[in-house]
């Protein structure tokens, strides 16, 4: 019985397995493939991602439930995260092809991307503290390597910061897990945890919960674990930067949601998340004001975006809207943020937002994609982030935290300044073109795909 149960469990997590197999294939295959033929491994990675998405779609049709003895949730949220992560990673590879093709570490990059993506999905699905910790490590460790790959001074700085912050927050996370396990009598599964913690001392539960949430904020790239984000976004290769500001966040936000939902009412974990969310959006926005480098600006913008994404977790269990709002926001954010990064990837020589002057005339497609993605990140309709923000704010209000909706609106207004500062020069005259090389082809395509997807996702949001 145990054997057959285990077998069906493996089938239930086929999407994750496919990602892992793809990562290993890319890693091993890379060692035996000459550099000029490494594109084969790109196809392997893409095939793994497509296979994983297909399996995820099939998985969505089967009933929700827990697998592996209640440690892993296979439900619509996990299913959606699988699809979002796979699609986002595909977009990342798409926008990175120009940078990676023929690169000395091309296959390793694909392996690292897929490994980290696996970690992000498992984090989102984890219904058990220990599984969540393993997923956290699986999602983090490849990132250090990804950031450091660029072999420049700023990449080294970014990698160092990421690594140190990761180590620190990993320890905080583990401490929190240990405390929670201690007071729950060794009960790690969320279902059992919820029951066991109800009678546990509230102070200890609160301390453990805060530590776990704070630890996860490193992966989410939100306050207080946000320091590495802008440096890594600026210093790393653009492929890595696009990935690390998008995919790990998805896993971390869902993990926080699931944990908060599982904690007993004796502790107000929702309030902790609310405070961190507000701090993230506000700090991210304020810091983004002064930025002139597009990638650093986007880095800070992702800090603020994760604040919005955390609002559903701040009302977890208090409204039915929270879960769909979170999923839709994450999906919308992922494609929109990647579209913006794809534009940056297509124009690697434009290192300041002033260099984007006159882009609308010289490269209208890219300018259009940039406009859609920046207005999208701002939350202007009809892009999908607008629908996401709308649902998130509605969920927050419906969950009894109307003030969070107000904070979201105020922050949205504040963010207008820096998004506008970037795209205003794009549509202004005063050509500075000529000294720049032609935009990279694949990144341009990825930008267009991302921009279109961002709008289409908003229009068909009802179906999603």
């Amino acid at each position, binding site marked *: 019985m145990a054997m057959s149960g285990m077998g069906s469990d493996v089938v239930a997590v086929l999407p994750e397995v496919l990602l892992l197999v793809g990562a290993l294939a890319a890693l091993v295959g890379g060692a035996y493939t000459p550099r000029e033929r490494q594109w084969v491994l790109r196809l392997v990675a893409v095939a793994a991602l497509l296979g994983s998405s297909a399996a995820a779609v099939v998985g969505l049709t089967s009933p929700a439930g827990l697998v592996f003895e209640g440690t892993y949730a296979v439900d619509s949220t996990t299913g959606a995260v699988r699809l979002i992560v796979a699609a986002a990673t595909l977009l990342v590879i798409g926008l990175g092809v120009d940078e990676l093709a023929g690169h000395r570490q091309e296959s390793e990059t694909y392996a690292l991307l897929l490994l980290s993506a696996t970690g992000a999905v498992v984090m989102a699905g984890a219904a058990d503290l220990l599984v969540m910790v393993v997923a956290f490590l699986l999602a983090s460790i490849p990132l250090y390597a990804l950031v450091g790959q660029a072999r420049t001074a700023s990449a080294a700085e970014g990698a160092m910061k990421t690594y140190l912050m990761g180590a620190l927050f990993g320890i905080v996370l583990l401490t929190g897990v240990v405390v929670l396990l201690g007071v729950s009598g060794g009960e790690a599964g969320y279902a059992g945890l919820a029951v066991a913690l109800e009678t546990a001392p509230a102070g200890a539960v609160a301390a453990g919960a805060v530590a776990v949430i704070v630890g996860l904020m490193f992966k989410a790239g939100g306050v207080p674990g946000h320091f590495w984000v802008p440096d890594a976004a600026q210093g790393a290769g653009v492929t890595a930067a696009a990935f690390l500001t998008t995919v790990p966040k998805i896993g971390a936000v869902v993990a926080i949601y699931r944990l908060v939902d599982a904690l007993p009412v004796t502790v107000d974990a929702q309030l902790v998340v609310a405070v961190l969310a507000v701090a993230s959006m506000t700090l991210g926005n304020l810091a983004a004001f002064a930025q002139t480098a597009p990638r650093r600006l986007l880095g800070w913008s992702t800090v603020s975006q994760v604040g919005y994404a955390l609002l559903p977790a701040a009302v977890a269990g208090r409204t039915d*809207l929270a879960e*769909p709002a979170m999923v839709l926001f994450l999906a919308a954010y992922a494609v929109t943020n990647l579209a913006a990064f794809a534009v940056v990837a297509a124009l690697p020589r434009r290192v300041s937002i002033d260099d984007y002057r006159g882009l609308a005339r010289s490269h*209208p497609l890219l300018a259009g994609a940039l406009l859609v993605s920046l*207005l999208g990140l701002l939350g*202007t*309709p*009809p892009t999908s982030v*607008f*629908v996401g923000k*709308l*649902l998130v*704010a*509605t969920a927050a*209000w*419906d969950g009894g935290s*109307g003030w969070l*909706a*107000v904070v979201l*609106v105020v922050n*949205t*207004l504040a963010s*207008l*300044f820096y998004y*506008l500062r970037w795209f*205003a020069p794009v*549509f*202004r005259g005063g050509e500075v073109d000529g000294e720049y090389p032609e935009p990279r082809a694949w990144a341009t395509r990825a930008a267009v795909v991302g921009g279109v997807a961002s709008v289409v996702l908003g*229009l068909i*949001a*009802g179906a999603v």
Partner: protein
Amino acid sequence: MLSLVVFLPLVAAVVLAAARGLPDAAARWAWVVVSLVEVALVAVLWWRYETPAPLSSTESGLAFEEQVPWIPGVGTSYHVGLDGLSLPLVALTVVVFAACSIYALREDRRPRTQAALFLFLQTACLGVFAAADLIVFFVFFDLSIVGMYFAIAGWGHGSAQRSALQFFLYTFLGSLALLLGFIGLYVASGTFDMVELAANPPLVGAGVTGGLVLATVLVGLAVKTPTVPFHTWLPPAHTDASAVGSAVLAAVLLKMGTYGFVRIAMPMLPDAWRDFAWVILAVGIVSVVWGALVALAQTDLKRMVAYTSVNHMGYIVMAVGAAGLVGGSDEQARQLAITGAVTQMVSHGLITGALFLLAGVLHARAGTYEMGRFGGLAGRAPRFAVLLPVAAFASLGLPGFSGFIAELQMFTGSIAIAPVTAVALVGILLTAALFLRALQRLLTGEPGELTASFRDVRASELLAVAPLLVLATLLGVLPRPLLDVIEPAAGTVAALVAR
């Protein structure tokens, strides 16, 4: 059919934006053709329009209704329809945009892009007025801000970038406040559908919550309208926008604010509206007087017209505020005030659109709006000397023009309800004075330093401005066709707000 009217300009905009090799002349004429087709389509709509059964629990109160599910999870759908409040504004929108397309036949700065942008903007404006769902309303409302931002920043003059930014920030703030209010309505009711919300207003008797939701909605609409004290974005935006940009901004975009009062705030938050009615009324009166006084102090023609917009919108705010004073007033007076308010929206759109286009003529010739640098234009430019006085007299509310009909109804209704509104009559006096003075400075007297360079109104400019003024005159003489459409809807609103 209605969706076709709304989205046809967008389709044309996409085509124009994509057709990079298109000659400028073809782009200009394509815009004219599409906008005239829109006028024809709306004429058909108007002709086929029959006043729908008033709103009730079974009737939507809308004609040409269309509904497609969008995000069922939060009760929002693509829901559009027209009634006596929205049909006149849809008609106004297509007429003003058509006038702009003709006026822009002489545009030499990126005409193809401009045509695409304004067609996009037209879809946004039509969408706002056709929307029967708060989120659809908001989507188009926000898109109109984005479109207008580019219209000011891309084709403006002077410190256009700065003014465009200020416009964006200010009105975006307003739109976010509006969104917050919409979410509040949703949380209380479980739907974003405007018909359902008006039929069963949530938050009735909810006291503070109802007041707060109305306050956020009102701030959002007041910024857009704009009323004192939220009007400071308007004069710079107008001064630095191009002529067609200003015309659309004043004639159509400002109406979104006042339209929101009668469409959203009054029917959906009736008891909060009644509680706030005195405040709204007072804001209206202050806007009337303040707008007129500041306009009087202007030497720049365009700034002056911009401030008269604050004044004219103030009458509307005053009238809808008065319509909320239910106790001790009779329904007829309140209906009259609301009918006058909607009529004023149409009338102001036509007349101010014409005024801004005429101000654009001044700028096109001499590069300035300074009235003091002209003079004696009557001798030099006879056509200009006919059009400008007609527009000015229409704007100050002379009998025979649509403005008179509108103001007469608003004041008759308002004074019957709250005699204190008679104070706002001062505004009419002041506008009369300032327009007469402006005419005097520009048209009569000794020729100014720039008069010699002034070339009279061209054919395309005449064809753009004259229809607006002809319509304003027609509505002033024969207002029945318009009032027949507006009155039943205004009666419904008057009844809804009294619940």
